[in-house]
C-alpha cells in the first residue's frame, strides 16, 4: 500500500462523508455549504483520475457556480414556509433499498471490467496532429465530436430562455433580479476593482492554453462569468436588461460562429463541422474565443436569474 492509495482511500471516505452530510443535514444552509466543500473534494478526485480538464470544470462550475446559485436560493428561501412533514419511515426504507440496489448494480458493473479494456485514446492521439491541437480533450470537443459541443451550447441558450420565461409578463425586457450590494468605498468595491483585471487575464490565458494543455472555453468562460457577477454585485456596472441587443448578440455569438464554420466546412472541407486542411487550428481558436465570451455571459445571466425589475427610463 503506497502513500497515494492511502490518500485515495482518505479522499473517498471524505467525499462520501461530506456528500452524505449534505444530503442528511436538517438545515438547508449547512447542506449547501457541505455541497460546496464536496465539489472541491471532487475536483481533487478528478486530478487523481488524470482528468485535469474535468477537475477545472468541476471546481469552477460544479462547486463554484452551482454552490453560489444554491446559496442565493437558500438566502431567499429562508423565510419560506417549508414542508415540515418528512417522508415517512416505510417510504424512506423502500427508497433506501431501491437506491442500494442501484448502487450495488453500478458497483458490480464497475468491478467487472472487460478483460481487454477497449480505448479510443490511441485513435484520438493519432489523428490529433491534423487539427494542430495539443490537448486531446479539446480535440474531442472541437474536432471529433464537435456536433455535441455545438448542440450543448444551444442547450445553454435554451436553459437561459427557460429561466427568463419565468418572469412575470410585465417584467419582460427588464433587469435580472441579481441582488446588488452597492455601498461606495466598501471592501467589496475594492475587491471588485482589484480582482477583475487579474481574472480577465486568467480567463484569456485559460482559453488560449486550452488548445494544448488543460483549459479551454468552459473554464475561461466560468472565470469571466464570476468576474462579471462580482462587478455587478458590487454595483460597479449596472445589470443589463435582457432586451439589450448587444447582450443577445454576445450570447449567441459563440454557437453562431461555430455553426457558420461548420456549414462552411461543407463547402470548403468535405463535411459539416470539418475544418479545411491547414486552417483547423486558427478556426478552432476563433470558435473557442467566441465560445468563451458566450459561455461567460450565459453563465453569468443564468446565475442572475429571471428579470425582476423594469428598466428605468
Amino acid at each position, binding site marked *: 500500500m503506497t502513500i497515494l492509495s492511502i490518500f485515495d482511500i482518505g479522499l473517498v471516505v471524505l467525499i*462520501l462523508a461530506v456528500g452524505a452530510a449534505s444530503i442528511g443535514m436538517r438545515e438547508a444552509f449547512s447542506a449547501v455549504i457541505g455541497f460546496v466543500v464536496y465539489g472541491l473534494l471532487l475536483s481533487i478526485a478528478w486530478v487523481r483520475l488524470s482528468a485535469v480538464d474535468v477537475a477545472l470544470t468541476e471546481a469552477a462550475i460544479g462547486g463554484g457556480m452551482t454552490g453560489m446559485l444554491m446559496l442565493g436560493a437558500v438566502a431567499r428561501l429562508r423565510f419560506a414556509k417549508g414542508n415540515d412533514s418528512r417522508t415517512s419511515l416505510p*417510504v424512506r426504507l423502500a427508497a433506501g433499498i431501491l437506491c442500494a440496489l442501484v448502487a450495488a448494480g453500478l458497483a458490480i458493473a464497475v468491478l467487472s471490467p472487460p478483460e481487454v479494456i477497449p*480505448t479510443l485514446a490511441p485513435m484520438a492521439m493519432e489523428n490529433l496532429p491534423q487539427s494542430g491541437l495539443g490537448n486531446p480533450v479539446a480535440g474531442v470537443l472541437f474536432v471529433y465530436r464537435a456536433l455535441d459541443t455545438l448542440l450543448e451550447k444551444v442547450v445553454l441558450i435554451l436553459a437561459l430562455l427557460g429561466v427568463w420565461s419565468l418572469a412575470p409578463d410585465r417584467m419582460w425586457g427588464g433587469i435580472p433580479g441579481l441582488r446588488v450590494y452597492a455601498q461606495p468605498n466598501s471592501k467589496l468595491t475594492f475587491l471588485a476593482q482589484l480582482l477583475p483585471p487579474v481574472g480577465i487575464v486568467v480567463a484569456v490565458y485559460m482559453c488560449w492554453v486550452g488548445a494544448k494543455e488543460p483549459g479551454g472555453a468552459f473554464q475561461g468562460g466560468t472565470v469571466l462569468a464570476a468576474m462579471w457577477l462580482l462587478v455587478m454585485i458590487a454595483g460597479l456596472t449596472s445589470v443589463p436588461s435582457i432586451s439589450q441587443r448587444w447582450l443577445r448578440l454576445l450570447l449567441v455569438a459563440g454557437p453562431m460562429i461555430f455553426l457558420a464554420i461548420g456549414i462552411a466546412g461543407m463547402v470548403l472541407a468535405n463535411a459539416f463541422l470539418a475544418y479545411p486542411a491547414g486552417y483547423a487550428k486558427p478556426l478552432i481558436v476563433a470558435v473557442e474565443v467566441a465560445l468563451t465570451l458566450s459561455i461567460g455571459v450565459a453563465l453569468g445571466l443564468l446565475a442572475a436569474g429571471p428579470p425582476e425589475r423594469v428598466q428605468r427610463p
Partner: protein
Amino acid sequence: MNAATLFGLCGAALVGLGLYGLVTNPEPLRKILAFNLLGSGVFLVFGVVAKRAAASGLGGDPVPQAMVITAIVVAFAATAMAIALVLRLLQETGRSTLSSDTSAATDTAGADS
C-alpha cells in the same frame, strides 16, 4: 484494488446517495442538491472508464473526459433552471414545496390560459 476501481465504487455509492436524497427529501432545493450529487457520481463513473482506458501516453481516454465536461455544463444549466423555478414558485405562493397533496394540484390544473 487500484485507484480507478476505488473511485468507481465511490461513484456508485454517490449515485445511490443522491438518488436517496432525490426520492426522500420533500424540499425542492434539497432535491436539486441531491440531483447534483447523483450527477457527480455518474460523472465519476465516466472518469473511471476514462482512467482505465489510458493509453498512448495519456492519463485517460480523452473521449469520455470530454463527454463529462459537456455533461457538467448541462447539469449546471439544469440546476439554474430548477432553482429559478423554485424561487418563482416561492414568489407566487410564499411556499416552496412540491406539495404532496396532488389532488389539490390536479384539480386546478385543468384551467387554461
